[in-house]
């Protein structure tokens, strides 16, 4: 039963600030996923929780105890490293038993713990092998096994699947999900680049950007109600389309006039009278764009068409050279749309409105 509480955590290397004002509460038994662009400090945050990196400012509590100055071994955490970090000179058995031997457990206890873990991870046939005689997936499981035997309160994973090939990644992802299910009261923190991993594994996702937390929420929360443009574009693939526009109707629903040769769209997001005329960006996910005969909304010329079978991706010619192309993702097969001018709309609930980068929903 171990929750974590991060209060105003900050990290800087010399005068370079990497993280600032991180506030986060993690309940016992959660599987939290940190995502964010490369270099945003995911690993740094994880390593601070592990105790491998000094916390510059703020307070870290694990299970109600302030652990800022507690050495890693006494934080009751275990960590899986990106490159597995197996001890190359030790057998699989010794790799898993190392921490237990250091903890001066008896031979019988160690044996029992290692056997149990290797059973769960199907590593029993390989116990006498050195890591170099294992496949990538097996090494990965040994790294996880090394954590399990210690029965820690918190598991930390730093991009554990990034060195595996695509098929193995899916299989191992499922294994990790099952592992979590078998240990419902253990907390896990998982760093990844991979959206699918984040969406499928997480009980809550923490999006890190710009030295801080951009949004925390369940996967669907982030998908349906992004707090800001960054999260909106980061979650989902292809990324959400953003259109500049101006509010022309306020109230329960907001009406926005799009820039360029487009018409208006209606969003279910409420706005205030004072918002009239404000410059905003509206966001519509590619999969929420619908074909329509109504010419009052978005109109564009199809520049590129990609047929994937189950879906068809349409890339519209951008209004200006610098702009990102607007993308629509239509279910099923559509033939011969290239070069045509199409009219697209979206349901008001699926139209996100961002003023100064922040969603109208959250102000």
């Amino acid at each position: 039963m171990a929750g974590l509480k991060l209060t105003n955590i900050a990290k800087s290397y010399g005068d370079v600030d990497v993280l600032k004002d991180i506030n986060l509460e993690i309940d016992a038994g959660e599987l939290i996923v940190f995502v964010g662009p490369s270099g945003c400090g995911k690993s740094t945050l994880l390593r601070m929780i592990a105790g491998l990196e000094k916390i510059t400012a703020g307070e870290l509590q694990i299970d109600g105890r302030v652990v800022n100055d507690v050495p890693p071994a006494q934080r009751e955490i275990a960590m899986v490293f990106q490159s597995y970090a197996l001890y190359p000179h030790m057998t699989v058995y010794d790799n898993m038993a190392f921490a237990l031997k250091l903890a001066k457990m008896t031979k019988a206890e160690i044996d029992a713990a290692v056997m149990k873990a290797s059973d769960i991870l199907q590593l029993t046939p390989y116990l006498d092998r050195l890591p170099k005689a294992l496949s990538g997936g097996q090494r990965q499981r040994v790294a996880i096994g090394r954590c399990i035997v210690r029965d820690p309160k918190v598991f930390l994973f730093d991009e554990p699947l990034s060195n595996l090939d695509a098929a193995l990644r899916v299989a191992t992802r499922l294994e990790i999900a099952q592992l979590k299910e078998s240990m419902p009261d253990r907390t896990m923190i998982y760093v990844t680049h991979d959206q699918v991993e984040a969406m499928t594994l997480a009980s809550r996702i923490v999006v890190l950007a710009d030295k801080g937390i951009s949004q925390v929420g369940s996967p669907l929360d982030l998908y349906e109600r992004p707090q800001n443009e960054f999260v909106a574009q980061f979650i989902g693939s292809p990324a959400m389309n953003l259109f500049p526009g101006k509010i022309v109707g306020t109230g329960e629903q907001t009406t926005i006039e799009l820039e360029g040769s487009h018409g208006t769209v209606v969003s279910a997001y409420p706005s205030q009278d004072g918002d009239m005329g404000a410059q905003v960006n509206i966001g519509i996910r590619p999969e929420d764009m619908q074909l329509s005969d109504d010419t009052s909304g978005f109109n564009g010329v199809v520049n590129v068409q990609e047929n994937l079978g189950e879906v068809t991706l349409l890339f519209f010619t951008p209004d200006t050279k610098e702009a990102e192309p607007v993308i629509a993702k239509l279910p099923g097969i559509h033939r011969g749309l290239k070069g045509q001018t199409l009219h697209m709309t979206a349901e008001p609930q699926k139209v996100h409105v961002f003023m100064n980068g922040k969603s109208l929903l959250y102000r």
Partner: protein
Amino acid sequence: MHPALQGLVTIIIGVGGCVGYFVLSNYLLDRFLLPARAMTADETASRRRIGLIAFFAVPALLVAGLVVMYGDLLSAGGIFRLIVGALVILGLWRLTGFIFAEGPLTAGHNISHANMIRPWLFLFPAILALGLYLTYPVFETLRLSFTQRIPGGYEFVGTANYQQMMSEPKFWEAMRNNMMWLVIVPAMSTVMGLIVAQLTDRISWGNIAKMLIFMPMAISFVGASVIFKLIYDTRPIDQEQIGVLNAIYLSLGGSEPQQWLTLPIWNNFLLMVVLIWIQTGFAMVILSAALRGIPEETVEAAIVDGANPFQIFFKIKVPQIMPTIVVVWTTITLTVLKVFDIVFAMTNGQWGTQVLANYMYNKLFTANDWGVGSAAAMVIMILVSPILIWNVRNARKEMK
């Protein structure tokens, strides 16, 4: 001519000769012997005729002539010469057949054959030089160790030289001392090198410390011996001591200055210190690189697993660089077995500090007893060989 100029000319001739040899021999091979083009059967036949004369007949006649010219074909030496000559001629025959094949040839055939010869072109000078200066002396020394000089020549005396050597206490003293050197110097150098490498790894002035510790490597053994002779120097009690060791000894309450290099047993260790001082730098540099090569994540994993710094060092780091430690250890062992300069320059084997190499030198060049000197050389070689072989194997495994 000024000696410096002479040196320069020698270098130019030497380097120029090497470059010239490699360029010319490869040019010859690719242009005339095995040109990279197809050849008709007629062409190969006429080439083969020329090749047989220039490559086989002429050199073979020369070799045969040389063998016969020396005469005395029925003695042991004569039969040996005959066998060598026959082998050379056979080799020439096979080589000619290899280069000047019969029938039409494709360009690919010529290129692949040229590429099979090319490594040997590069190896030939080295093989020749090593054979002449290393392999041949080994056999000659072996032969000499069974002979004895008599006025006007040699005579074969069987194992008498070895027996004489075995009965000399000085030889056994040298053996004992060599064994002490063998155990202590590699151990101390490697251990200290490892400790220094680890301690200097993370500190800001670590590189300066490393440089200072590495510096003795650049000093010759004799130079180092001179330095340490000054450290161990002794002056009569009423004079000021210039030897650091005596100065420290007296200031710590010693009653009178010691003649350090004449104190039995202890003087051996004082000599070893010189070599340890030199070799620690070597061990440190290699082991420091090896320590850097250890994946940082395995160390971090050990920290999370609860290992303290000592456990990380002994259970995670040292085992991972064990192959390198072995190579360093054996390399220093080889140096130790051959140690000569230090003993020669500091005590010349007196006061119980004799070692095998210095013993050999004394026999060979001071006593002019070539037989026993060669026997001592053979003993050194026999002691070195197993370690050398092991070392080469380890180094090869390391490289894979």
